């Protein structure tokens, strides 16, 4: 030390565990007792100007200090603070007592600059974490010495669960400091270079504060740092350590935070598992266990679980006896959880998961006053808007995008991302310039409240891309239906958020596996296949998507036949729609090169065969399946005719047969052109129709009428002519002579050959086999 009168009063060093409610309590008691003239807190000094905001009415923890590089909003760090964080308590104490509070840690300008060298650490809030687990695990060593196998529990027993003692409020800090000193000596001074630099900076700031304020300096910092701050070190040495540190221009602001984010394993505070429990420990004036279990009982009652006061009493007894048995001073979270499980939840973990979600973690959402500086997301958006020359204007305007151009593709992605974030700047409009997949039309209008939306979206991230990714992931987790998740997957592809796709796909696969409604699965498949093709067009990596899609298809194949049994007319009609949708999707999916997909088509055809032959399946579905097989060239004409004859034979109730016809040649199935061109099928229908007994005919008439009236007028007329000509004329079609009206009896091979090169060009199939497969089924229809 450099001497001087400041040495006469040692600074009050309060070593804490970040986010420890017991530490927070102890800090408050110690500050009340010592009444320092200034409070120094471990944290980035750039935030000093933001401290007064913490006094505001509309500032409610949990909140976080957010530092970000001005030129690169993606590079950022968070310092979250909950109501029970000792740092927050210290800030509030200082504000309430009109005492200045300052942050003394290494400036974020250096922290962020450093991250550049050390690789990406987005949001990792490196600034103030002692990170004991990663480095030398000082708490673990201390806990081990005390006979604990779990450092967290030891800390809780020794510090966090202590009530405010009657004795000297500074005593626990002194004891802890001694332990830490011994520990740091053991570990060789905790030699991590980063710590040394940070501690040097803290020492310099403490010295400056002691020169400025005569009446006492209090320092709140991680317990690990206390010995280093106590130990004197020459000013010159500290200065030397800090010399030449890289620096970036940074900005700071407050952002709202949530308990859920506090509990995340990443980021600041090494991820506290139970912010709700800590909050309770901090807020409860007394009898924390009793109050906690009463809270739990209240929650379970609200969820219609019968929990009486007797349950609470027994749970308290069990928790306290368990604590005694495990040798703990007070029942902790594990004891109360065990007690809740055994007494209130009948040993089941299911209601317990609810308790964990709502209480142990909790839904608390912080608030930040509107006067807090702008979030980096706004800057990022403004930058992108400038780069893409897309000005936010209040007047509505149309924007046509050609996605083959880079700028337009980026604009499209931006608008899609903003939509995901709930910032409805653009609405998709029906494209005027054609329906190609590379065109998109938007209607843009920047409403003033969108700025508010942008500020709100700031919690999701610091750049549009990162925020949209985080939002999409969260949306996927909380999405209710399968449709919502598939929609989200599609949206992610449109918005180019490949980072969010793994999560979305995982959720999607889970939902697909657990959904028992084939109808929902069948509805989800087309959207998924669409996304897959879209992704293919854009060169996105869609392997995961393809895997999910083929898994979904497989599940549909298994579930469809049982689901088609015993349906009424409406349900059968709906299911027919599903069969169509799946058929289309499988056709698209089968084109993709993945080896698994090749077999999909064959598997689907076997499902169709099963369906078409099963008597319990409604006629409309059976007819449709036969038609699909026939169109796909999987079923010979003769076989189709046999099945049709079977369905239309005497034994079948006329209504059922009519439904079969509806499925087979209904307007939705592609109209009656098939009947026009296949005389034999028409003859079968004709024979069936004329064979219906008179009394049944009136019942069937509406069904038949519905089928045939939906045909194009031209088709109807041709059919009528064919029927009028009578069976004799038609019978000759399959023979050598004659032919359909308008066609020559024989094939003019010379003219047909002339068409072939053009066809080959159109279809792009170089080998003859493909050509045949492609032209074969198309022949009769066209």
């Amino acid at each position, binding site marked *: 030390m450099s001497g001087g009168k400041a040495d006469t009063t040692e600074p009050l060093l309060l070593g804490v565990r970040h986010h420890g409610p017991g530490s927070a309590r102890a800090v408050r008691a110690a500050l009340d007792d010592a009444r320092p003239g200034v409070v120094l807190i471990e944290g980035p000094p750039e935030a000093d100007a933001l401290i007064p905001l913490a006094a505001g009415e509309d500032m409610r923890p949990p909140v976080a200090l957010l530092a970000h590089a001005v030129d690169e909003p993606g590079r950022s760090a968070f310092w979250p603070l909950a109501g029970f964080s000792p740092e927050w308590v210290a800030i509030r104490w200082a504000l309430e007592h009109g005492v200045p509070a300052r942050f003394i840690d290494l400036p974020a300008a250096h922290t962020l600059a450093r991250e550049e060298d050390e690789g990406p650490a987005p949001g990792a809030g490196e600034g103030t974490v002692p990170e004991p687990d990663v480095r030398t695990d000082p708490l673990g060593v201390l806990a081990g010495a005390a006979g604990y196998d779990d450092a967290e529990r030891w800390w809780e027993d020794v510090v966090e669960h202590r009530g405010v003692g009657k004795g000297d409020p500074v005593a626990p800090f002194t004891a802890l400091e001694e332990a830490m000193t011994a520990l740091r000596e053991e570990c060789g001074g905790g030699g991590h270079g980063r710590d040394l630099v940070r501690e040097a900076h803290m020492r310099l700031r403490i010295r400056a504060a002691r020169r400025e304020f005569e009446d006492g300096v209090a320092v709140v910092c991680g317990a690990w740092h206390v010995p280093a701050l106590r130990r004197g070190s020459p000013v010159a040495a500290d200065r030397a350590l800090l010399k030449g540190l890289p620096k970036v221009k940074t900005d700071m602001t407050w952002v709202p935070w949530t308990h859920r984010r506090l509990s995340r394993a990443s980021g600041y505070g090494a991820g506290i598992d139970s912010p709700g429990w800590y909050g309770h420990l901090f807020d409860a004036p007394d009898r924390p266990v009793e109050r906690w279990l009463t809270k739990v009982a209240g929650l379970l009652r609200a969820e219609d679980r019968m929990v009486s006061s007797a349950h609470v009493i027994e749970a308290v007894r069990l928790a306290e006896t368990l604590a005694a*048995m495990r040798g703990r001073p007070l029942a902790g979270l*594990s004891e109360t959880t065990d007690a809740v499980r055994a007494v209130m939840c009948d*040993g089941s973990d299911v209601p317990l998961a609810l308790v964990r979600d709502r209480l142990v973690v909790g839904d608390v959402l912080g608030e930040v006053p509107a006067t807090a500086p702008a979030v980096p997301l706004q800057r990022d958006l403004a930058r992108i808007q400038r780069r893409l020359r897309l000005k936010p204007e209040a007047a509505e305007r149309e924007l046509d995008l050609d996605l083959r151009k880079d700028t337009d593709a980026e604009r499209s992605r931006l608008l899609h991302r903003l939509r995901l974030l709930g910032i409805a700047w653009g609405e998709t409009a029906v494209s005027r310039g054609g329906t190609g997949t590379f065109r998109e039309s938007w209607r843009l209008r920047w409403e003033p409240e969108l700025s508010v939306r942008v500020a709100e979206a700031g919690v999701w991230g610091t750049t549009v891309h990162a925020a949209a990714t985080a939002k999409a992931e969260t949306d996927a987790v909380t999405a209710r239906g399968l449709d919502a998740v598939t929609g989200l997957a599609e949206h992610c592809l449109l918005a180019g958020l490949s980072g969010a796709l793994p999560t979305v796909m995982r959720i999607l696969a889970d939902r697909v*596996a657990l959904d028992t409604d084939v109808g929902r699965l069948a509805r989800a498949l087309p959207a998924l296949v669409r996304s897959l093709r879209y992704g293919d067009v854009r060169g996105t990596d869609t392997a995961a998507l393809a895997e999910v899609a083929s898994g979904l298809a497989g599940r549909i194949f298994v579930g469809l036949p049982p689901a088609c049994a015993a349906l009424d007319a409406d349900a059968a009609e709906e299911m027919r729609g599903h069969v169509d949708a799946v058929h289309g999707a499988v056709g698209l999916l089968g084109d993709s090169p993945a080896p698994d997909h090749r077999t999909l088509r064959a598997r689907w055809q076997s499902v169709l065969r099963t369906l078409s032959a099963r008597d319990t399946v409604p006629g409309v579905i059976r007819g449709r399946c036969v038609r699909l097989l026939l169109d796909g060239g999987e079923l010979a004409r003769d076989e189709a005719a046999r099945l049709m004859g079977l369905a239309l034979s005497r034994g079948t109730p006329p209504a059922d047969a009519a439904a079969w016809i509806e499925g087979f040649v209904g307007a939705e199935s592609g109209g009656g052109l098939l009947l026009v061109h296949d005389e034999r099928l028409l003859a079968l229908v004709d024979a069936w129709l004329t064979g219906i007994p008179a009394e049944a005919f009136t019942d069937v008439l509406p069904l038949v009428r519905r089928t045939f009236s939906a045909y194009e007028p031209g088709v109807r007329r041709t059919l009528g002519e064919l029927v009028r000509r009578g069976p004799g004329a038609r019978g000759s079609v399959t023979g050598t002579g004659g032919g359909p009206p308008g066609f020559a009896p024989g094939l003019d091979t010379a003219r047909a050959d002339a068409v072939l090169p053009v066809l080959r060009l159109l279809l792009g199939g170089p080998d003859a086999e493909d050509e045949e497969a492609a032209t074969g089924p198309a022949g009769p229809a066209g």
Partner: protein
Amino acid sequence: MTVPVERDTLRPHAEDAFAAELAALAAQDDRPRPARWRLSPWAVATYLLGGTLPDGTVITPKYVGPRRLVEVAVTTLATDRALLLLGVPGTAKTWVSEHLAAAVSGDSTLLVQGTAGTPEEAIRYGWNYARLLADGPSRDALVPSPVMRAMAEGMTVRVEELTRIPADVQDTLITILSEKTLPIPELGQEVQAVRGFNLIATANDRDRGVNELSSALRRRFNTVVLPLPGTPEAEVDIVSRRVGQLGRSLDLPAVPDGIDEIRRVVTVFRELRDGVTADGRTRLKSPSGTLSTAEAISVVTGGLALAAHFGDGVLRAGDIAAGIVGAVVRDPAADRVVWQEYLETVVRERDGWKDFYRACREAGA
């Protein structure tokens, strides 16, 4: 698992089989003991979970599973609450209750076996009708139930398969557990429980058609659910050990041990039970059956018999396929879809499972 006892009983009681361990624990137990407990709660937990005493005596673990569960169970008994052990068949419920009673009261024989025909007399008291007719109603003519004896002597009584007992008989326990008295209206007397009395019940939580406990009775119990084996390795170990014992006792011809097939059975059972594949990447629907370890054992035993008598003496996929399908597809409609989905989405694509996939397809369902 067992310690040899110098007697010819097929299966000695826990307190006899482990008399030496209990004596050593009691001798070195200096912690406070609740009234009429033979050991302190800490020593009871050590007895169940195993450990080494200060003098070097090794206590064998009786229950291999989460320590937390045993602690909650022992603490429940110490706080004078009745304990309900729940779990699917084959999770050592009876085993744990027997050892708890042996350690706490030194006697595991006060036992009521719950069946659909358990009468009220089994829980309250019956009459010696010869004495009743000769001398009229008196305490001498009364035949006490295990519960009544436990109340009078401050012991631990066990009720096995509580949910199989008819509901009206179950409810006689309510007074006993809440008032801790058993009235004898015929004599105008009552038996009051002395300190140390407690009750351990076991019940099966997956069986259909059981008599659910009334909520009044339920809240007299603290519930501990005993889980299925935690890791695949532990379960494979249990299954192969047990299959070996069974094979010997059934005099099956020796079959080279098919550890691969056993692992396969355990994998299938665990995946369907947990509703997620072993690699944790694919979710699955779960069938309606319990798919407990005990069923895995019987599938493998059946497969061994098939292989030995009709096969080539080696346990192959085909030998276990029919057994697995039978165990999984309990409900012909819903379970069949679950099973086929599993076959098509998981088994079909798994490396080295081709034979099994084919065998299962052949086995039908």
